[in-house]
């Protein structure tokens, strides 16, 4: 065990994967010699050479297009998109190519070895274009997996699992926690399961569901609610696609209430899918409407960032409303 922040945990996972399998290649804007603008890929080029860790020209559609071809050839690309806000130029390559490659070829070819790493989320005074949480756009794309860690331990275990999983994985890293979140991380090799939610704390009155950086906020709100004697069951979804409906449903059948929170704008956010599925699965168990506490339906504003965010106070208020419905 060693104390690591999330960047160190990501770096450790990459070193483990590249050491184990020489087909693993890491690339993207500034990831080479410099080690990435957040330094998640530090020292990889020195350790593994320019052939396996390198800078690309400044083109996201090129990075993913290149990665798709490389994956279909049998190599194991781990491509970095410098900020999730800049993944959209690669949207066609991801949605029409990466995700459909295996299906359209009847399983003859695939991009299963591809992992796309990208930092997402707000709370860092990043304004419109350094704050976005685009998971919902990709959650509507059959063929992709989407994974979001909430701490360094998860970051290493889930990233290693993503790199080894034989499906393309979009691995979204909560950049607000890159240095802020520090914890014990095994130096040795380990993985955590994809597609499985984690019950972070047990409770009986309401189920609180989130992922990534929002977990911290959720737990803070839960503590406030506990003081009012509201017993919260806190769940970390961990995988957005495919998502673990069963674990969520079991919890909601117990608590009778569900609150989901994410930073992304509410309309069309992934909370809507969860709410739609759970109201169907748990219709007769629900004691109050499923509640969403999300970002506003606006671009991400700098000056009003604090007001925009679904913070612990908004969640706490929503919990109370739910329980008193």
């Amino acid at each position, binding site marked *: 065990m060693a104390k690591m922040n999330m960047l160190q945990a990501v770096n450790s996972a990459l070193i483990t994967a590249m050491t184990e399998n020489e087909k693993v290649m890491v690339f993207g804007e500034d990831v080479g010699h410099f080690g990435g603008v957040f330094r998640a890929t530090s020292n990889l080029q020195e350790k593994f050479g320019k052939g396996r860790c390198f800078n*690309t020209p400044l083109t996201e559609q090129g990075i993913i*297009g290149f990665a798709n*071809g*490389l994956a279909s050839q049998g190599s194991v690309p781990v491509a970095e998109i410098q900020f999730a806000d800049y993944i959209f130029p690669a949207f066609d390559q991801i949605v029409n*190519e990466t995700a459909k490659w295996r299906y359209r*070829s009847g399983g003859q070819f695939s991009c299963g070895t591809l992992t796309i790493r990208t930092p997402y989320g707000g709370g860092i005074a990043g304004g419109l274009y350094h704050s976005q949480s685009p998971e919902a756009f990709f959650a509507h794309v059959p063929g992709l997996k989407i994974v979001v860690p909430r701490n360094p331990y998860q970051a290493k275990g889930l990233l290693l699992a993503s790199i080894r999983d*034989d499906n393309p994985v979009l691995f979204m890293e909560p950049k607000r926690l890159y240095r802020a979140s520090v914890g014990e991380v095994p130096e040795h090799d380990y993985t955590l399961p994809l597609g499985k939610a984690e019950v972070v704390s047990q409770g009986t009155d309401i189920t609180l569901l989130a992922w990534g950086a929002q977990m911290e906020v959720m737990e803070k709100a839960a503590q406030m609610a506990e003081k009012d004697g509201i017993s919260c069951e806190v769940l970390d979804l961990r995988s957005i696609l495919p998502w673990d409906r069963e674990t969520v449903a079991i919890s909601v059948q117990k608590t009778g209430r569900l609150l989901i929170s994410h930073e992304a704008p509410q309309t069309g956010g992934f909370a809507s899918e969860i709410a739609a599925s759970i109201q169907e699965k748990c219709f007769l168990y629900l004691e109050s409407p499923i509640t969403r506490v999300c970002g506003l339906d606006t671009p991400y504003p700098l000056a009003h960032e604090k007001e925009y965010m679904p913070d612990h106070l908004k969640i706490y208020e929503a919990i109370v409303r739910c329980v008193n419905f």
Partner: protein
Amino acid sequence: MKDRNHLSNIGLSHQVNVISNGLVDIPMLQILQADGVPHKEATLPDMEKELAEKILTTMQYIRILDERMVAAQRQGRISFYLACTGEEASTVGSAAALEPQDMIMSQYREQGTLAFRGYSTEQFMDQMFSNEKDPNKGRQMPIHYGVKELNFMTISSPLGTQIPQASGYAYGQKMAGQPAVTICYFGEGAASEGDFHAGLNMAAVLHCPVIFFCRNNGYAISTPSEEQFAGDGIASRGIGYGIKTIRVDGNDVLAVFAATQKARELALAENCPVLIEAMTYRLAAHSTSDDPTGYRSKDEEERWRAKDPVLRFAAWMQSQGWYNEEQNKAFLEQSRQDVLSELKRVEKVPVCKIDDIITDVYDTPPWHLKEQLAELKAHIAKYPEAYPKTAGRL
């Protein structure tokens, strides 16, 4: 740390110097004249009789396949088709210069390369009838071929996407130490996509052994190349990226063959991309959904019919004494019959069982897809007559 100077190769001028024609001429390699007689000055690539015969018959076979399948589409037997008439030399001539281990990433008008690698009439039909024997499981529209054994990547409709992919594929071949290159086909229209820019630039910077083969056939559906770009074709761009570039007469098999051989040799030896621009013309309609009379003149088409690549090559073979009228007639006859009989036969092959609607989305179907399949099967069982293709084999 290494000192850099991004001005090291740049000279000075002291007057405003607007460069409006900064390119050397990019002539088009032509070995055979329209009548099949080689230019005196031309050096012919060495090509055995056998290979020449294979090239000719492949081109003729594709011409026949195209004719028959366009007809089949008209009769409503297949939903869609896309012919390469007029461009056989570009595709077959380039494929002939490759090795079997080279990966082919095509756009959609390159059936000639597939035929050259031995794709059978039956296999063509299996794909076009989207049946259970298509290795792609009948999921895409007709002509979206793909077959792993032949190193022919499954075609996808979105244009240009295969260009950066080809760079990545070639990079992987290089890292794996394989004596192989990737060839990437695309049209001059697709070359306007952002992916073209990304793919060529990355291949140049990352030293990828890839051959970019552009079929400049003058049109993107109805859009003539003069409304597609203002520069000197696609070749001029390769030069901008610092990529070795060759322009060739796409209707001259020998020229295409020689150019592609050279390109492959360079790509492998120097781990670098090479761009080939083949000047040709789409004599066919864009596809069975298109009618060219809406955007180009018959005269224009006639001028190009006179440059028919198949006749040109046949004439040359004749002059070599490699062309046996009788034999060739027989081959054509045989091919027509094969295509027709396979068409009839394969028409009856069923599509995949319904279970395959959810396979290959992921390596193994997750819970939600299993759930959706179960519901679907129960539903089909309840209304079998509404789903005749699959109800019989639930």
